[in-house]
C-alpha cells in the first residue's frame, strides 16, 4: 500500500507536469492536424480515409521535402468520433499552433464552427459539414470542397431520374439515413425537391444504436416498395444496410448511396450480391496515376504506411479519397505560400489559400492526379467549389465509374443555402459577415 501510494503520487505529479508543459513546434513546418477516428463505431470508414490523408502528406515530405521546403506537420488527434474528445483535440491542437481544423464529425463541426470566427483557424471539411458552408461570405472560415451534401443529394436524384427530376413524378424515394445531424442534413433540400417535382419522399431514420440491426427499417422498405432507396450512411450503418438489402432481395440497381456509403470493405462482405449498388463519389480511384505510384514507392513499399495491404486497401475508393483530401489541403498551403511569399504560413494565410484554390485539369495533371478529382475552384463567396461528382458502381469486386460527371441543380440549392446561412448568422449574433466579398 505504501509503495502504491508513493507510485500514485509520483505519477500524479508527472502527469500534472506534462499537462502544463506543451511542446514547441519546429520552425520550418506547418502544423496540419486531423481529428481522426481510428477507434469507435465509425472506425471502419475512418481508417482508410485517415491512412490516405496521412500517406499523401508523408509522400510530399519524403519526395519534395514538404512544400517549398516547409515540412507538412500532419498530426492526428484521436476523437473516436466523440464530440467531447473533439473539444479536447481542438483545444490541444489550437494551443500547439494548428493552422487548420479537420473536424470530421458533424457534431464536432457544429461545436467548432462558431469558434472559427474567434480563433481564426480555418475549418476544412471536404465533402461533409454544413451544406450552407458554401456561402463563404457568412462562413468565412469554413470550407467544404469539392461538393456539399445538398450537391450530393441533388446529383443522386438527377442520376436516378435520368437527368430530369420530373421523371420521378409519382414515384417513391426512400431516404435511409443515420438519425444524426449528418443524416438529417439533406432532408430540407429533398423535401423541397419532392414538393416541386411531385415524388414521394419517405425518410427512414436509423438510430445510432440500430446501425447494425436494421431489420425494422428494411421491413418498412419491403412494405412500402419504394422505387429507389437513397442512403445517407456512415460507419457501421452502411454494412448493415447493404447486408439487409441483400437479405431482403431489394434490387441493387435501385439502391444509391452518398459518397460516404461506398466503402469497399462493406461491399466485399456481400461480394457478387451487391452488384449494381451505386455510390456517388467526387473522387475516382486510379492506382496507376503518378501520385499513387509515388505514394506506393515512397510510403507504402518502405513500410511507412498504416494500410492493410492484404485487404487491398491501397486500391480502395476511401483510401484514395483520403489522398485527395490531403491534396486539397496541401494545395491550399501552396497557394497561400505563393501569394504571401511566405514559407511558414499562418492560419489566416491558409484561409486565403483555401479560398483561392484552383484545381483545374492542368493543375491536377501537374500534380499527377488527373481524373481523380473533378476540376473546381473556390472563391470568397463560394467555399465549396461545386465540382460535381461521378456515380460509382460495384461490379462484384470493386467500384467502377458508372457515369459521366454529374452536376447539382444550383437553382434549387443556392436559395436554400443562402437562407440557411442567414438563419445561422441570425441565430448566432454577433456574427461577422465578409462585406468585402462581392
Amino acid at each position, binding site marked *: 500500500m505504501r509503495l502504491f501510494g508513493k507510485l500514485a503520487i509520483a505519477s500524479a505529479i508527472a502527469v500534472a507536469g506534462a499537462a502544463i508543459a506543451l511542446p514547441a513546434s519546429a520552425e520550418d513546418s506547418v502544423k496540419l492536424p486531423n481529428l481522426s477516428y481510428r477507434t469507435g463505431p465509425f472506425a471502419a470508414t475512418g481508417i482508410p480515409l485517415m491512412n490516405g490523408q496521412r500517406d499523401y502528406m508523408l509522400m510530399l515530405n519524403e519526395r519534395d521535402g514538404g512544400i517549398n521546403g516547409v515540412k507538412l506537420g500532419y498530426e492526428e488527434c484521436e476523437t473516436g468520433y466523440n464530440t467531447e474528445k473533439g473539444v479536447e483535440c481542438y483545444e490541444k491542437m489550437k494551443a500547439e499552433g494548428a493552422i487548420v481544423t479537420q473536424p470530421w464529425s458533424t457534431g464536432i463541426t457544429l461545436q467548432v464552427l462558431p469558434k472559427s470566427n474567434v480563433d481564426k483557424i480555418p475549418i476544412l471539411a471536404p465533402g461533409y459539414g454544413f451544406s450552407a458552408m458554401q456561402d463563404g461570405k457568412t462562413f468565412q472560415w469554413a470550407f467544404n470542397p469539392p461538393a456539399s451534401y445538398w450537391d450530393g443529394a441533388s446529383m443522386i436524384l438527377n442520376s436516378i431520374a435520368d437527368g430530369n427530376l420530373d421523371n420521378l413524378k409519382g414515384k417513391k424515394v426512400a431516404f435511409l439515413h443515420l438519425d444524426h445531424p449528418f443524416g438529417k442534413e439533406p432532408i430540407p433540400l429533398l423535401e423541397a425537391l419532392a414538393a416541386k417535382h411531385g415524388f414521394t419522399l419517405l425518410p427512414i431514420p436509423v438510430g445510432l444504436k440500430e446501425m447494425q440491426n436494421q431489420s425494422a427499417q428494411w421491413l418498412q422498405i419491403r412494405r412500402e416498395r419504394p422505387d429507389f432507396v437513397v442512403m445517407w450512411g456512415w460507419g457501421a450503418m452502411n454494412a448493415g444496410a447493404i447486408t439487409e438489402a441483400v437479405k431482403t432481395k431489394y434490387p441493387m440497381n435501385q439502391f444509391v448511396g452518398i459518397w460516404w456509403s461506398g466503402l469497399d470493405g462493406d461491399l466485399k462482405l456481400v461480394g457478387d450480391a451487391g452488384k449494381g449498388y451505386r455510390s456517388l463519389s467526387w473522387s475516382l480511384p486510379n492506382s496507376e496515376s503518378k501520385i499513387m505510384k509515388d505514394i506506393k514507392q515512397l510510403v507504402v513499399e518502405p513500410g511507412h504506411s498504416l494500410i492493410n495491404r492484404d485487404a487491398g486497401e491501397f486500391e480502395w475508393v476511401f483510401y484514395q479519397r483520403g489522398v485527395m483530401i490531403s491534396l486539397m489541403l496541401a494545395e491550399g498551403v501552396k497557394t497561400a505560400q505563393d501569394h504571401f511569399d511566405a514559407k511558414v504560413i499562418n492560419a489566416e494565410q491558409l484561409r486565403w489559400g483555401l479560398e483561392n484554390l484552383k484545381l483545374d485539369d492542368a493543375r491536377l495533371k501537374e500534380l499527377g492526379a488527373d481524373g481523380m478529382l473533378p476540376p473546381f475552384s473556390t472563391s470568397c463567396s463560394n467555399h465549396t467549389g461545386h465540382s460535381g461528382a461521378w456515380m460509382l458502381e460495384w461490379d462484384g469486386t470493386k467500384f467502377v465509374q458508372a457515369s459521366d460527371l454529374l452536376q447539382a441543380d444550383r437553382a434549387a440549392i443556392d436559395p436554400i443555402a443562402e437562407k440557411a446561412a442567414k438563419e445561422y448568422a441570425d441565430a*448566432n449574433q454577433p456574427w461577422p459577415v465578409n462585406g468585402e466579398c462581392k
Partner: protein
Amino acid sequence: MLYRTAGQFKTSYHADHALFPVRQDAWLLGVILVCAFVVIPAVASEFAINALLIPVLIYALAALGLNILTGYAGQLSLGTGAFMGVGAYACYKIITIFPDLNLVVAIALSGFFSAAVGVAFGLPSLRIKGFYLAIATLAAQFFLVWLFEKWSWLYNYNASGAIQVANVDMFGITVAGPNAAPVTQYYFVLGVVAVVTWFAINITRGRIGRVWKSVRDMDIAAELVGIDLMKAKLSAFAVSSYIVGIAGALFVFLWRGAAEPNLFDIPLSFRVLFIAIIGGLGSIMGNYLGAILIVALPVMLGTLPGAFGLTIASATVEHLNVMIIGALIIFFLIVEPHGLARLWAIIREKLIMWPFPH
C-alpha cells in the same frame, strides 16, 4: 505533524458537530478555494481550462446531483444523462424565448424543469427498489432522448436537430457562446458549482439529509419511526434532478457550445454514475475526486507522450488510455471499495496519527 490535532479542544456539542472538527480541514479547503479562484485562472492555459477544469467541475456537479439520490437517499438511477438533457434543452428554450434574461436565472430556472421530470420518473421508486428502480429510470433515459430527437420545437426546428449556444451577455460580459473568454466561463462554472456544493453540504448534513440517509439504510425502519417515505424519496429525486439539470445546462452552455440529442444518451449516464461510485457514494468531495480521475486523467495521459518527446500514434494513445483508466478504476476499487473519498479519509486519519501510529 501537519494534521496535529493536539490542543484543539471541543467544549460543546456544537463544536463537536462542526463542519470542520479539525482546524486543518478548514485550512485545506481554504487553500483549495484560493487555488481554484485565484491561482489556477492566473496560470492555466486555454487548453487546460477548456479541456480539464471546466469539464471536471461540470461532471463533478452532475455526479453530486446523482450522489444525493443514490449515495444519500439510496435510490439507484440510470437516467442522469437524460435529466442533464432536460436541463440543457430547458435552458436553451428559456434563452431563446427570453434572450435578455440573465443566464444565471435561466440556468436556475431550467433546473426546475429537470426537477419536475425527475420527480415524475421518481414516482415508481415508491413501489420498487434497487435494480428494478434502475430499470425504471432507464426508461426515462430512452424516452427523453427520443423526445429530444423528435420534438423539433425543442431545438427550434433546426435542420440538423442540434442546439447551438449563441453569444449570451451578462452585465456587458459575454459568458456563453463562441465569443466568451475561457476564463470568464471558468469563473461562471466555478461560481455555480461552489454555490450548489455549499447548498448540498448543508442539505445533506441537516434534517432532510438525515431523513434521506435513514431511508437509504433501511426504509421500513425509517417508516416506523415516522418518516414519510414518499416525501423523502420524491424530495431526493427533486433535489438531485435539479442539480443534475443545472449541470446539464452548464454542460452545453458553458462548455460544449452545441449539443445533439444522442449526447445525452446512456454513455453519459454511466459516466456520471462511475464518477459517483469511484469518488464515493454518500460523499460530496468524492464527486470531485471521481471527476478528476475519470474526466481529467485521460486528457492528461493523452498529453504525456508528447511531453516526453515520444511519437506514438494518436489512436494507440487512445487505446492505451482506455486500458490505463480501466486498470486504475479496478485498482482504486480494490484498494478502497468505498471510493476515493473514503481513501482520502483513511489517509487523513493516518496523517493525524503520524508519525506515531499505534
